[in-house]
């Protein structure tokens, strides 16, 4: 057993260092799906979260509770909901997205969006408490205040986006359900790890596991040092 694991590690490193094409394709697809979802969630979630942070309307409290709850939405449930929407007989079935990378992007967007909205809401609400009167004084009210708040909250918001990236890149359930884990087409790092482990092919699973953790580590390290350098310059 011990030698099995050792040889699995050796093969795993071989896959990584040797830039094995199957391995690379899976990593590339994962990155493409998760980064696309992150961009979509950021584009929609940052302004939405900021508006939620600075406006007052009936039902705002309930909206915040719902968004906060959705942060913990189990990925399999997100996948299931999207599956029902996208399946041939579902309301969005006409797009033919099911079992494509597009469906996986949609699923992960659904997972990241509440995180981005909720954390942006919190950040901008705190900033608005501090900046509100000054911004209103210089004529930046309502939606016109949003760019200032997003920019000045950029360090906290980067952390929110990283949390979103972490959640999406780590989940299996949603992409498995709507992507179908089709070889060469919709296989991500996590779905491949799950499949290969159950088949007993530990080498590929391990290689992908190492790559996944390494990527997340690298992204966090870059964001952390960028944040520190920038913070020194703008306070």
């Amino acid at each position, binding site marked *: 057993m011990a030698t099995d694991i050792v040889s699995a590690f050796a093969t795993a490193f071989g896959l990584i260092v040797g830039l094995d094409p199957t391995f690379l394709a899976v990593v590339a697809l994962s990155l493409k799906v998760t980064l696309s979802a992150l961009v979509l969630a950021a584009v929609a979630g940052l302004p939405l979260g900021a508006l939620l942070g600075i406006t007052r309307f009936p039902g705002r409290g309930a909206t915040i509770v719902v968004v906060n709850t959705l942060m913990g939405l189990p990925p399999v449930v997100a996948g299931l909901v999207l599956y029902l929407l996208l399946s041939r007989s579902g309301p969005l079935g006409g797009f033919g997205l099911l079992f494509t990378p597009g469906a996986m992007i949609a699923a992960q967007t659904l997972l990241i969006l509440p995180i981005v909205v909720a954390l942006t809401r919190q950040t901008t609400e705190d900033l608005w408490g501090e900046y509100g009167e000054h911004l209103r004084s210089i004529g930046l009210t309502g939606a016109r205040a949003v760019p200032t708040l997003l920019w000045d909250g950029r360090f906290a918001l980067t952390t929110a986006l990283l949390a979103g990236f972490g959640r999406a890149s780590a989940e299996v359930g949603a992409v498995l359900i709507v992507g179908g884990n089709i070889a060469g087409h919709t296989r991500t790092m996590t779905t491949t790890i799950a499949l290969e482990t159950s088949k007993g092919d530990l080498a590929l699973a391990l290689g992908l596991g190492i790559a996944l953790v390494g990527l997340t580590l690298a992204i966090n390290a870059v964001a952390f040092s960028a944040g520190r350098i920038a913070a020194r*310059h703008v306070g």
Partner: protein
Amino acid sequence: MRDLPSILPLRFEGVGLALGGRELVTDLDLVVERGETTVLLGPNGAGKSLLLRLAHGLVTPSRGRITWAAGQETVADRRRHAMVFQKPVMLRRSVHANLTHALAAAGFGWRRRRARAAETLDHFRLTHLAGRPARALSGGEQQRLAIARAWALDPELLFLDEPTSQLDPAATRAIEELLFGLKAEGRTLVMASHDLGQARRLAGRIVFMSGGRIIEHAGAKNFFESPRTIEAAKFLAGELL
């Protein structure tokens, strides 16, 4: 200062504000004439900050009218008065970017923004701090920047809410020098203060408030030499705080 038709006088007529059923300020009648420096005095909770925020349009009165030279305030009028807060609001950006941000909000294009920011930094002797994070400045420097940022917009009228209350005597004097400069440029100032010495130095007129009302509105010399109300006399004697 630009040569534009004046937005003054600013007129409060029976202005009141109630929040949650509580009357915070009541029956405010006041005229601020062009070129005057008015200092609002009064104990904590008198309503000085509220008066400033009402005048600047940050709060809408629940009773009465606030009018400007042209009657109802126009969008163009709104641009001609600025406010400096007790605790300077510093964006998480450089000193320079704090200026360009306010200028951008006022509709200055990129080139004019840079020129005006440079002129402002120079005028307020902040050029050496231009690249520093605004929030890393000292309290006095932050207040100087806050005033500079308001000045950059070339306001005819400035509202200042206790601009020196958090500063040491030297920084207070430096800010007062700036305020004298603003007066000399013909700008109109309305300022809340707890510092009677400062009020004597700067004020042309005094508005004395207590309990959400204007108790006295008089020329500074008259107010300090012969207050008309017992409350004002007590306040000056340091008994009403």
